């Protein structure tokens, strides 16, 4: 993946000016190409880089000054080779490479390296001066905890790698990088722990990443959609996280992390369904309490999916199952509501989705205004005006609040999708429909694989040992924190 013309080497010209001209043409006379012409003894030397993605300070101090100094001190060199050798000695940047290929030179300069061209010399020096502007490390915004580390990934891949490395200071932690995207040439890093991660899965993920043929990678989801096992499922087959502690914990369990330049979200794979209900905080608090919270989260997820459908089934198909007093209350509420309950329910569900979307899109400053309009004015006024019954508002609000307990947003979107399917099947044939659809979901879940690992492990296939950290969490000392949940399933690859 080092360049588009790997097989056809285009040699560099030995004339510096010719090379510069060519580069200017290739880059379309881009204004941020910086060219510094110098002389070393009798030879012309050019130092080239693109502004903004290099460490300018370091170039001035560690590249240009020593070369000027060199020119002053040593007026004559025998050959161009001697100049190049001498330069390697005096330039103090982390890495220096010699290249012959024109396209490699182009890629390097675009990646933020500095190029030194020397007259009558067929090679170019590539200096590692890359420095990409990024924001500083802040608190995570999507996966917050009360107790636990407060740092999160940034858009800079090297910062992100450093955050993981600092947590796992082990020689077995492996990093492979590659460039993906024929236009963007985005850096994609790939981390795992040798000896814990399943070698076959590592190879599989690598080959899938190398097979990706798209123009651009701007966010983790580009990779996720390109390499996942089943493209038709609603369930997330990879976890994305902006927390280094989650990534570190998963690496230690034998998983693989894919770190992508330009996004703070790191992909973790393979993933199990139960992981979406586990918060890093589960391990930072007392295990009894965190087990309880984990059960609450699973309950919330189910309620989020099923509350509306069950309510609908009860009041349209199975009125006999409601206690009489409650039934009378519900009937009283619905007396003057003009719409059928299914329309009413869909209206409210859609209204909530709109509010949620509005909440994400709108500028921060008008946040409170939307919640006032949404919750107070719309909700209360709609009930008082008799457009919707109060029970529907309660049901929709309950299911919405329940969705916020989940530590991972990927699975919430799944529940949103399934909720609507369940509502339709419930409106159609009541509990029977809910049951049928639930069966379909279960069958589908059992058929899912994330990089060959059964998605609903450790329940199906059932593994007793792994139960210690699935629905509930045993004390950390009794957990055998290895890759017990990851098991090869070669059949289904």
């Amino acid at each position, binding site marked *: 993946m080092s360049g588009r013309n790997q097989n056809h080497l285009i040699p560099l010209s030995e004339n510096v000016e010719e090379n510069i001209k060519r580069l200017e043409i290739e880059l379309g006379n881009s204004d941020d190409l910086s060219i510094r012409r110098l002389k070393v003894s009798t030879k012309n030397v050019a130092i080239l880089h693109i502004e903004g993605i290099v460490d300018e300070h370091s170039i001035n101090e560690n590249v240009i000054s020593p070369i000027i100094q060199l020119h002053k001190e040593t007026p004559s060199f025998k050959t161009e080779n001697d100049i190049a050798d001498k330069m390697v000695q005096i330039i103090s940047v982390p890495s220096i490479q010699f290249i012959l290929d024109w396209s490699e030179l182009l890629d390097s300069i675009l990646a933020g390296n500095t190029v030194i061209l020397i007259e009558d010399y067929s090679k170019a020096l590539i200096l590692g001066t890359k420095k990409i502007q990024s924001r500083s490390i802040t608190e995570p915004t999507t996966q917050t905890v009360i107790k636990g580390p407060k740092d999160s990934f940034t858009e800079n891949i090297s910062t992100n790698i450093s955050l993981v490395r600092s947590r796992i200071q082990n020689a077995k932690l492996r990093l492979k990088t590659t460039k993906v995207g024929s236009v963007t040439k985005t850096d994609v890093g790939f981390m795992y722990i040798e000896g814990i991660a399943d070698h076959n899965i590592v190879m599989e993920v690598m080959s899938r990443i190398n097979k990706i043929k798209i123009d651009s990678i701007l966010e983790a989801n580009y990779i996720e959609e390109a390499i996942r096992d089943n493209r038709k499922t609603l369930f997330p087959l990879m976890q994305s996280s902006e927390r280094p502690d989650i990534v570190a914990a998963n690496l230690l369990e034998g998983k693989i992390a894919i770190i992508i330049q330009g996004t703070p979200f790191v992909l973790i794979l393979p993933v199990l369904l139960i992981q979406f209900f586990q918060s890093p905080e589960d391990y930072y608090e007392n295990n009894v309490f965190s087990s309880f919270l984990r059960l609450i989260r699973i309950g919330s997820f189910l309620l989020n999916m099923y509350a509306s459908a069950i309510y609908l089934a009860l009041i*349209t198909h199975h009125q006999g199952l409601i206690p009489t007093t409650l039934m*009378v209350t519900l009937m009283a509420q619905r007396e003057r509501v003009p719409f059928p309950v299914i329309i009413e329910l869909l209206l409210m569900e859609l209204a909530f989705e709109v509010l949620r979307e509005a909440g994400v899109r709108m500028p921060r400053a008008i946040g409170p205004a939307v919640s006032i309009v949404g919750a107070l004015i719309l909700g209360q006024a709609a009930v008082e005006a008799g457009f919707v019954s109060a029970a529907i508002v309660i049901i929709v609000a309950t299911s919405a609040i329940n969705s916020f307990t989940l530590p991972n947003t990927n699975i919430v979107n799944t529940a949103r999708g399934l909720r609507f399917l369940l509502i339709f099947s419930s409106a159609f*044939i009541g509990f029977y429909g809910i049951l049928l659809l639930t069966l379909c979901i279960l069958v589908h879940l059992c058929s899912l694989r994330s990089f060959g690992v059964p998605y609903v492990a450790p329940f199906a296939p059932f593994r007793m040992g792994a139960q210690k950290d699935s629905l509930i969490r045993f004390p950390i000392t009794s957990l055998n924190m290895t890759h017990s949940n990851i098991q090869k399933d070669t059949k289904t690859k």
Partner: protein
Amino acid sequence: MRKLVTLLFILLLIPGCSNYRELNELGLIIAMGIDVSQDIDDGYRVTFQLINPSQLSPTGAPTGIPVSNYTVEAETITEAYRRASIIIPRYNDLSHLSLVVISEELARKGTNLVFDAFERGKQAKSTFPIFIARGTSAENVLGVVEPLESNPTKSVRSTSENNQKMYGISKVMSLHEVITILSSEGKDLVLPGIKLNKNLTSKNQTDNLNNIKPSVIEVSGLALFNKDKLVTWYDGEMARNVHLVLSEIDSTSFTIPCEKKNMTLISKRMRGTIKTLLKPIPTLQVNIAINTEISEVNCNKDLTNTKVLTDIEEDLEKEITRQVQRTIQISQDTGTDVFGFGTKLSKDNPSYWKKHKKEWNTLFSKAKVAVNVKASINDSGHVTDPYEPN
């Protein structure tokens, strides 16, 4: 994938039609009253009581009566239910039926197979209780709204449940219990009676809600059935004693004389067992063990003296024995074995029962009765001796 789709399609066809129904299209029948039809021979006059939900809304004060009654006459109950659609504006839903009242007139004629429709029907539960409207029609009993419980159905149920807890005349008998007893051998049915304590004074029913002495539902005795026909009533203590013998009582009170005045003992723990002895002569034996506490004393007695307490216990035992004997006597006179001595005998001595079950009614009527009561006083309340006015 195709297999799955086929399977789903088949599964979708299995349930048949969807019974999608909106709540505001539903007429919730919460009670039914069954009377003898005036016009149709062997027909019924059925009153359906429907909830008017807007009057029971949790927000906003009710402005009218929370229920409406619709009465139709037909040959069978189901026919009446279907025919009721000529006057009921909503789809009748029986799944919340929680009370059936049968008039005394119909009960005396014989309930026959009136319960078949409920047992056979798919909509109604079989857990609703059955009451007898004593000396009045079921239609009248269901036609009263009283201030404390504006819903007549709830009023009937809660009054009788309350009485069951406090005294024990009434006992809620659900449909399936009734059918079990009716179809069993050696046990006859008793059903609780209800009536109005007085007739409505005004034609306008909402006036009853504003009356300080409203016309209300009153629990009134137990109806004794011989097979499916009502034969006589037990009242007050005697109705209570039936449940005492059957151990189907939560708590009750006994009043016994004491130095020309009275004293009352209440009991929360009691147990009655029955036995049948064949030799030397057929005997019906009733054993009652009872734990009481003194709750009111209107005479001067030294309650710290164990001798006095033993005397009271003996008095109480005598009183209960007398009452229970009279109760069983009436049961024997009418030939209705409401205590289930026959059932007990069939379990204790199946061969004898097989031979004699045809003549059990006469055997039962002639049998000797032996009542043993063991009463004990556990407690005399917060004080020992009553205060002495000086």
